[in-house]
């Protein structure tokens, strides 16, 4: 059953990703991204990351995507020519990305990590639960937690400053 769920979610994730790149209308790109994110949340559940899966659906597929939809609606669904007019880049992009993919696959499959062909280590009960994530965040990763909260504050203020209506030549 696990394999069936994995392959269904993987096909959904890749389909969503292809939809993002291939849709001409940005609005449909955003909707494809929602499909992709939900498929990734299913994969997180398979990997025993319950809290991350919930955060992915609520924060990402919920809040961030609403922001995207608002901006797409505000800017207008500008039809975007699908390919680069610059012929050099258009020809180079598939070559570059194909090389990157081959290199990544070689790096993953030839890494010699023995655990890569297993289901993973034995887990303690409660692995990936909100309580465990919260405990790690407030003990071992306290500095990262504080820095990230500061970053969010700065980003919010920066966005307000950037998107403010520019009066009297400021901005």
């Amino acid at each position, binding site marked *: 059953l696990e394999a069936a769920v994995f392959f269904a979610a993987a096909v959904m994730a890749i389909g969503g990703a292809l939809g993002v790149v291939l849709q001409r209308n940005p609005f449909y790109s955003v909707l494809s991204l929602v499909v*992709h994110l939900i498929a990734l949340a299913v*994969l997180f559940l398979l990997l025993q990351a319950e809290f991350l899966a919930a955060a992915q659906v609520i924060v990402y597929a919920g809040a961030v995507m609403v922001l995207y939809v608002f901006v797409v609606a505000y*800017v207008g669904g500008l039809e975007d020519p699908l*390919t680069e007019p610059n012929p050099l880049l258009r020809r180079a992009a598939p070559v570059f*990305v194909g090389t990157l993919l081959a290199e990544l696959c070689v790096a*993953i499959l030839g890494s010699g990590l023995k655990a*890569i062909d297993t289901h*993973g280590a034995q887990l303690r009960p409660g692995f990936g639960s909100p309580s465990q994530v919260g405990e790690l965040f407030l003990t071992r990763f306290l500095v990262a937690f504080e820095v990230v909260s500061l970053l969010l504050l700065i980003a919010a203020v920066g966005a307000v400053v950037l998107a403010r209506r520019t009066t009297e030549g400021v901005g």
Partner: protein
Amino acid sequence: MDIGWYLVLSAFIFCIGAVGVLVRRSPLVILICLELMLNAGNLALVAFARMRGTGDGQIFALVVMIVAAAEVVVGLGVIVAMYRDRLPMDVDEMSELKG
């Protein structure tokens, strides 16, 4: 499922996102494709956390999610500012960092 499958899937998603960043021209779609690449990285991090059986990778993935949210907020602010100044929505024409 073996951990390797998840890593290969994340490599695929990362490369699809990279194609999008290289080929598309609308800044909005490029932001979405960046999102795709960040999520591929997240999937690999969670897979490694499962492989090692510690929660560290999940914390890292959560931090990546927060940084991605910050990036989206600033990026969308820039796009709204571009729209308000009637600048062309094309990254090839936006090659100067002048206010």
